[in-house]
């Protein structure tokens, strides 16, 4: 698929397939088009060319809120919790059009007791890491099948990022498919089954994290050498 932002072609001929239950990392520099890709899958942009399919169903024209009902949910860049809602309301709103499943308020409170303690407070006094945890929990409340994670590490301290990525696998029930976009390459490769490198709107490198050498990743990330585009580009 191809996505344009006004005159700018943000994504060019992206062809991406994800298998159920797999964790895919999309890495790349600022402006490579990673967020645009996630937002397009979530339904916030529509591609000028190509289609988005989910289990043999063409969902290209479906609105973002309708995709939530199918199980496609975005955790947006910069957390973006609702400031005039309490913590609990921020979680409840995640279940607005959710699917039935194992995630509930009780389960979130079990996992993060500090959210339960502060559930009647607004979110403005939370630290960045706490906000990120709430943003992920808000998405989980809808029992997603595909979770789109946009720059979890943005603006967080390295220690907090490390903790977040350590908790991540335990949050994600078996069978949940994850597409994560990240500038922090190390963390992204650590948790993913498959990785793609995005450069100027094209996929320049694809492979399993253990097969990719640091030199290859560096080259693809910064566009030092145009090679390895055969994988999915």
């Amino acid at each position, binding site marked *: 698929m191809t996505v344009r932002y006004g005159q700018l072609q943000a994504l060019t001929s992206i062809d991406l397939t994800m298998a159920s239950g797999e964790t895919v990392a999309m890495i790349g520099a600022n402006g490579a088009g990673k967020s645009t890709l996630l937002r397009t899958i979530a339904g*916030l942009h529509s591609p000028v060319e190509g289609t988005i399919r989910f289990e043999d169903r063409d969902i290209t024209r479906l609105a*973002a*809120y309708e995709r*939530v009902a199918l199980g496609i949910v975005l955790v947006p860049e910069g957390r973006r919790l609702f400031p005039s*809602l309490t913590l609990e309301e921020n979680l409840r*709103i995640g279940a607005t059009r959710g699917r039935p499943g194992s995630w509930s308020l009780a389960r979130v409170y079990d996992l993060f007791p500090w959210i339960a303690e502060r559930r009647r407070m607004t979110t403005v006094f939370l630290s960045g890491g706490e906000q990120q945890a709430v943003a992920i929990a808000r998405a989980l409340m809808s029992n997603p099948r595909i979770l789109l994670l946009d720059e979890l590490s943005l603006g967080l301290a390295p220690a907090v990022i490390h903790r977040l990525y350590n908790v991540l696998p335990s949050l994600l029930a078996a069978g949940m498919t994850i597409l994560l976009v990240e500038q922090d390459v190390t963390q992204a490769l650590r948790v993913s089954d498959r990785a793609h490198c995005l450069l100027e709107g094209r996929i320049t490198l694809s492979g399993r994290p253990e097969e990719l050498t640091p030199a290859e990743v560096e080259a693809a990330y910064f566009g030092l050498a145009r090679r390895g585009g055969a994988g999915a580009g």
Partner: protein
Amino acid sequence: MVWVNALVQGILLGGLYALFACGLSLLFGVMRVVNLAHGDFAVLAAYVALAIIAGLQLPVLWTALVVAPLFALVGYLVQRFIVQRSLAVSPLTTLLVTFGLSIVIQNALLQLLSANSQSLPSGVLASGSLEVNGQLSIGYLSVIVFVVAVVVIVALQMFLSHTALGRQVRAASDDQEVANTVGVNVRHVFGIAAAIAFATVALAGVAFGMYSSFDPAAGPQRLIFAFEAVVIGGLGSLWGTLVGGIVLGLAQVLGAQVDAGFGVLAGHLVFLAVLALRPGGLIPARFS
């Protein structure tokens, strides 16, 4: 005693202003839309009530039960098909669009129903009153309108704070895009907010029609009172709008007590004083 009477009448008149202003406050608070056709929709509601009284022989208070749901539907459609489109362009466009609606309504009424002024036949409601003593009497109509205003504003606040749909309204107001991605149909939710706002406008229009006469061009003058109540109370705060309405009503009645011609001006002066000294309004708060 004259002043006590003025105080009571002022507070009760404030109820009418609060009822009239809460729709404006809601639309602004939720979508940042300033509805310049607000006053004209109130006048339109009064004309519709007049037609219902003539056609169905309903007593005037019962017309509110027909006009309010009808205007809720109108509000939903106006939001979805007219305002939402302009909202996507820019906030200034919504001003132009609602200004255009205002002119269309005024001229359509003028064409169809002439410039003659009308009033809703309210019989004993308008003239009847509770005589507390020789100098203090409280009109039935103004008490009813005041009670309706308080009930409407309390109900609206409860709806926003404690219901799932109210929560969606607040979320959509905070961040449309993210609300969309967590499963909120933002356009529908905005339509609901507009429906509620228009239902309150209809109630206020009927109340206004019983208080005083109206003609096709009466909308914009009334809009000023709603604006003043909203700004005095604090933008985007429903409790503020209730307080703002009462302050405006008090200022007008107490001003008129000083000099019969001074009433409306006193209201404007209080409004200007609040703008100068407390630009955020008396109760500046968000819906929460």
